[in-house]
């Protein structure tokens, strides 16, 4: 559920308010910009020489600045990929930290060009808030974590358990649905934030902690003895997270969409940051050639250089490399690919062909 359940907690209220302010704002913006020709975001970014990319204020593995203030993480890589495609420079990004409450207005008002902030793709955000989700870079879902010593192997064994849960969120509703559907009972222990949950769960105030699976993994990774805790196999909700842009600027939406797709396709085609230079010399696989710009005019169609995708893979890496270096099994977070494997490996990642 995208940055903890917190954001959805306010979603309803927020969206009601938002509707009002969007209407007001739209009127204002329309009246102010009437007559002025609206340049496309792509041209704006090229003219500015920098991409304004909205990220979270900090989520383990997905976006956080390091000791030198350099942003890194799985979502950050999407920003850098787009900057590389458009400007040829992965560092030409102005990262704008946003909270669950400020992110949509930042995007709608034009303060940021795109939002890569583990935001769940939902109907109302896509349709009602007038945004365009250009793809999915992480398939998440709500899961459960329990201490190993409980000996629980399935969420269905949790009858009568006390559950630490963030209040006022969809995780709460998902949880109620799940337990009712399985006809078992539970006792909720309301908590406010993930940071509050960590010590409570460790002190045994609750038997189970539930939130997004990626959040559970990150929380578990910070424990002194992570091996004493297990994440149960059940995932009880769908949380497709992806980058989004404003409605209406389709050229820009295409650039972001295909920047993401190029990383996914590169993994499927076996193009990595290591062998991309060599493959760019020309291969027998026409799709690789089209992707890397040695054949066809895909870059030109997007309004970019011919080697846009080659630059992405060379500087950022393909999807698998980004996954492994930020949240994969070699990192302390240690997420398995799961649903986020290529469709050829039984996952859901499926880039449309580069043709």
């Amino acid at each position, binding site marked *: 559920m995208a940055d903890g359940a917190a954001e959805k907690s306010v979603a309803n209220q927020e969206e009601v308010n938002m509707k009002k302010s969007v209407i*007001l*704002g739209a009127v204002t913006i329309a009246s*102010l910009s009437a007559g002025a020709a609206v340049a496309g975001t792509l041209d704006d970014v090229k003219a500015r020489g920098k991409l304004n990319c909205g990220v979270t*204020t900090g989520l383990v593995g997905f976006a956080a600045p390091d000791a030198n203030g350099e942003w890194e993480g799985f979502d950050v890589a999407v920003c850098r990929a787009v900057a590389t495609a458009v400007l040829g420079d992965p560092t030409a990004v102005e990262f704008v930290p946003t909270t669950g409450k*400020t992110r949509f207005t930042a995007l709608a008002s034009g303060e940021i060009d795109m939002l890569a902030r583990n935001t769940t793709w939902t109907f109302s955000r896509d349709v009602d808030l007038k945004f365009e989700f250009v793809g999915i870079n992480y398939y998440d879902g709500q899961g459960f974590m329990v201490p190993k010593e409980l000996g629980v192997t399935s969420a269905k064994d949790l009858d009568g358990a006390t559950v630490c849960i963030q209040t006022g969120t969809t995780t709460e509703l998902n949880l109620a649905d799940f337990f009712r559907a399985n006809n078992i009972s539970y006792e909720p222990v309301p908590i406010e934030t993930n940071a509050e949950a960590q010590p409570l769960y460790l002190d045994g105030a609750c038997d189970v902690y539930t939130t997004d699976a990626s959040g559970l993994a990150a929380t578990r990774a910070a424990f002194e003895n992570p091996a004493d805790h297990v994440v149960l196999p059940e995932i009880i909700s769908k949380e497709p997270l992806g980058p989004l842009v404003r409605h209406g600027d389709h050229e820009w939406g295409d650039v972001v969409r295909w920047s993401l797709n190029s990383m996914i396709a590169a993994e499927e085609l076996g193009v990595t940051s290591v062998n991309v230079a060599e493959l760019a010399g020309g291969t027998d696989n026409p799709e690789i050639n089209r992707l890397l710009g040695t054949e066809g005019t895909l870059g030109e169609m997007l309004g970019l250089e011919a080697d846009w995708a080659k630059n992405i893979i060379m500087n950022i890496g393909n999807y698998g490399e980004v996954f492994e270096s930020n949240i994969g099994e070699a990192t*302390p977070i240690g997420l398995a690919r799961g649903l986020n494997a290529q469709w050829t490996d039984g996952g859901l990642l499926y880039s449309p062909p580069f043709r």
Partner: protein
Amino acid sequence: MSDTPRNIGAFVRHDQIPESPPPASETGIVGWVRQNLFSNVFNSILTLLALYFIYNLMADFLPWFFGGVWRAESIRDCRDILDGARGGCFAVLSERWHQLIFGIAYPQEAYWRPLLAFVLLFVAAAPVLFSDLNRKLLGFTAIYPFLAFWLIWGGTILNPVFGFLGFVVAYIVFDRLSHISFAISAIGGVVGAIVTWFVGGMIAAAVPELLALEAVPSRDMGGFMLNMILGTVCVSLSVPIGILLALGRQSDMPIIKIICVVFIEFVRGVPLITLLFVANVVLAYFLPPGTNFDLILRVIIMITFFSAAYIAEVIRGGLAALPRGQYEAADSLGLDYPQAMRLIILPQALKISIPGIVNVAVGLFKDTTLVSIISMFDLVGVIRGPILASTEWNGVYWELWGFAALLFFVVCFGISQYSQWLERKLATDHR
């Protein structure tokens, strides 16, 4: 009956007994302990309970503090070094201290600039806070805001210079025209300042490299520095605005009175966080697309409004506490309104208001952490966001929050001590 004293063998002392020391049980540490800690059964029980409590606390705290790890790469590293022993993971402080103080994006080679501005803050504030100092130092106080702006934000020195000149021009015009009427001279002053700033802005834009420090955008301000900037600027702006509002609320002129009452009641009726959201989110919709109205400036305006309304009410309390005779005394001396306020009323009213003003100032300083909610990386924002979300330090809580609490405590305690000193110094009543 006789007036000779009867000899009844009584002892009459003719010399004074030499002073002897009080009994050992009443002096020194023993006496103090007996009188203060064990004066009766109930107090003795309380003392023992308190000692037990303190012991438990210290038995936990001291090994944690002194056994702490100051050099490590990550929280896992810390745990390896501690190897089960009790101790804090203070390595997060030694690795990320610069982010806690200056924010994540302030250029590291320019740290001396805010630091210098911070040191100079004391020089600038001293003549305001301590009336015994040489009055000429006030000249530096007047320059300081512009100097500090140049140091912290960088850019050409022409910007702050023309900013300062604008005020000088406004004062000169006001002074020259003041014999005509107050309104005309005030308008003249404002026009003079705006013209100066406009011309200055064009000149500064023409030579952006003159005596320029590396420019740092507002977005890159952060850490405790941001709290200090917001706190200092907002407190120093909101005290004069609050005085004006308080006087306006007492005014006989209906329009001024209504404006002040509505402003104060509206701002006090709204939570600060709402105002911050307005500054951050709602304003963006009403400004033309592409407008870059500095976020820190927006936040400063909102916080200043907020605290000015509170300070106005505190000062109104001080004004109301003055006996009516003081107002009448000022009138009977033939003083006009500004003189009466400046010489008779405000000195007394402000003295009464000191504890209230300091209370608002301390509260305001801590309220600056609310900007973390609108995704600015102040001290709290840096901890909640970047540091706790980094793979290395996710899970370190006590050390970080303890450090933040310590920084805030030092500043707030300092402010409170100063105000108590000031109250003692200004105490002219005979109690």
